[in-house]
């Protein structure tokens, strides 16, 4: 399902252009609206669909194997923290799904490490990563292994 853009809905804002990992959503010079310049490099990742404020982008399954007449629509609501899908089969059957996309308000829970206490320079020589060993939630600290027991050749 490479993407396509409905002429009457797109206002040329460029969000899709900004997000597409494949760099294939471009603004048409004449219409000043977006379209998929290279459908054969579309992954159907829906990044652009989710990002479009006008719901102007839809997908129709790759012609190589997907018959016409289906649709898979999505509504990603950041504030609600949910994503809703509506699957319409070619024969008209419908399935709806809703899932969480995050359990936290956006932008708050991820630390700005620059504001953390500066770690001891000597810790650079330890194998521990930041927030470790606590972050491992194990007692006994970071596991390690005895080098002298290593062997070459088959192991079984």
């Amino acid at each position, binding site marked *: *399902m*490479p993407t396509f853009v409905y002429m009457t809905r797109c206002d040329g804002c460029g969000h899709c252009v*900004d*997000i*597409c*990992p494949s*760099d*294939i959503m*471009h603004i048409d010079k004449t219409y000043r609206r977006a379209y998929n310049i*290279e*459908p*054969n*490099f579309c*992954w*159907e*990742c*829906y990044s652009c669909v989710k990002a479009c404020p006008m719901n102007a982008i839809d*997908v129709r*399954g*790759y*012609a*190589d194997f*997907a*018959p016409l007449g*289906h649709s*898979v629509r*999505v509504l*990603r609501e950041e504030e609600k923290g949910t*994503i809703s*899908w509506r*699957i*319409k*089969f070619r024969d008209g059957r419908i399935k709806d799904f809703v*899932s969480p*996309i*995050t*359990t*936290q308000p956006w932008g708050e829970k*991820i630390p*700005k*490490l620059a504001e953390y206490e*500066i*770690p001891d320079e000597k810790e*650079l020589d330890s*194998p521990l*990563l*930041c927030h*470790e060993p606590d972050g*491992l*939630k194990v007692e006994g600290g*970071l*596991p390690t*292994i005895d*080098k002298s027991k290593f*062997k*070459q*050749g*088959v*192991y*079984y």
Partner: protein
Amino acid sequence: MGFNTVFEECDILVVGGGMGGTGAAYEARYWGRDLKIVVAEKANIDRSGAVAQGLYAINCYMGMRWGENQPEDHVRYARNDLMGMVREDLAYDMARHVDSAVHQFEEWGLPIMRDPETGRYQREGKWQIMIHGESYKPIVAEAARKSADKIDNRIMVTHLLMDESRPNTVGGAIGFNVRTGDLHVYKAKTVIIGAGGASHIFKPRSVGEGMGRTWYAPWSSASAYALPIQVGAKMTQMENRIVLARFKDGYGPVGAYFLHLKTYTQNAYGEEYESKWYDELKSMVGPYIDHHPTPTCLRNHAFVREVAAGRGPIHMVTKEAFQDPHKETVGWENFLGMTVGQAVVWASQDIDPKYVNPELTTSEPYVMGSHATCSGAWASGPEDISPDEYFWGYNRMMTVEGLFGAGDALGGTAHAFSSGSFTEGRLAAKAAVKYVRDHANDRVNVSEKQIEELREQIYKPLENYEIGRNEIVAGTVSPSYILPIHGLQRLEKIMDEYAGGITVNYMTNEPLLKRGLEHLRILQEDLEHIGAEDLHQLQRAWELKHRALASECVVHHTLFRQETRWPGYYYRGDHPQLDDDNWHVLTVSRRDPESGEWTMEKAPVYHIVD
């Protein structure tokens, strides 16, 4: 081409802000509080890389806090699945840290499912935990954005820079901005490659509009391999391409189906078929077929042979599991959260797995280093747990000084997946900080000349096009250039036919590989004449060049290993048996940057646990 040149000096340059790259940016800031940390990303890190559309499982989590698995278990699992061939030191190291990454993700808001009875993370299988991962990538991207000094989106990195004062030492990277066309020159003390794996090395099963619907993303363009190869870094296990059983056409992954939904496969006649191929496999790989779980490649072998025997297609039996509404929901959401295209295939073909058992296929081979495969750069392990010959100063540093890697970029570390790749990014970043500290007095020396030469190379496809286009009236056929899509289709055909793709049922041999190398050499010559109509096509041109170089490496490795180590991934028709006497080793290659000549060597596999 009136493009500007933008210079940037930094301590740590992260190339690629995917799972590995975001982990690296985060960790680098923690240890390198005062360092300049920059991420150069060809797309937009909010939705870049393999995880752009999300994931429905984290496939690597030990669960040490609940005593579920220990790093040793992971080593045993990964090496067994890869028929003995992994860097166990790297695997162990990743495994002992991965849980802390996952715990962070949860804190950051990633919805990890919980088993309502035990309160633990919901297991999909022994190693996998289930998530609602649609926003997995935006979440880790935020961590990177908050950590790095700068995220440069839409920078296609084309080459590494080399320090001209010290031998074999990285000096940064160079690339262009896909929007503005400007040249971006990063002079950096260390570079961490997190540029992902490679799709479109081999011809995919759909070749029209649907060629982009591969399992691994079409933008996984082998930069992680080409960049180090270009500067003479050593690579390992590049022959170990992966073939995966996938739902037909959409390439939807099967893990959640097999492990959580307990669906199973059968042939066109409803028969179990894996056992039919036991004897054949026994004769090919000996004891490996008796190990548990059955290695991924050997499961593929049974699939491929059963289909070739005329009893295909193989179906996934979903009709039973999907009667349970919860399982049905998991089955669908699994794809909506990770491979929407599979849901589209089913919608379009009226396949409701509750009533129809969908078809599976085996994919074309991919080159990557974080799934049931471990192609990538040859890197140092961590000091405390690496055999001496696998340690050269800094964890995850390649054989070029100051050059690090993570995730798909690194060889030997199978089954790291998203969480392990992020973890490797962290490990590499901490080591990079140490490297910067240790080399505090060194200054990066990259000459104007080096930059000028690369600038010319980088923009040459635009020039080729501009000149050639005037010669012809219109259309896509020119005697003086080929377009990126032309070159890509040539590459995929060469690899498919000569190096064991789908059309030949994964079969190759020495004569084919040697002929393939000749074709690749000539393709490289033609790629000097590639024509790019605009900046977007300039990106495609460089992606192709990266893929072509990585492919050359894959073929050299495949030629070197004179055995069939992974039936089901590929077959050496001339060496159809696994051969532990001669080939229980890792393969290591190096391409001389001056001559373009390749040298191959064997490196011992160290087994660090029983």
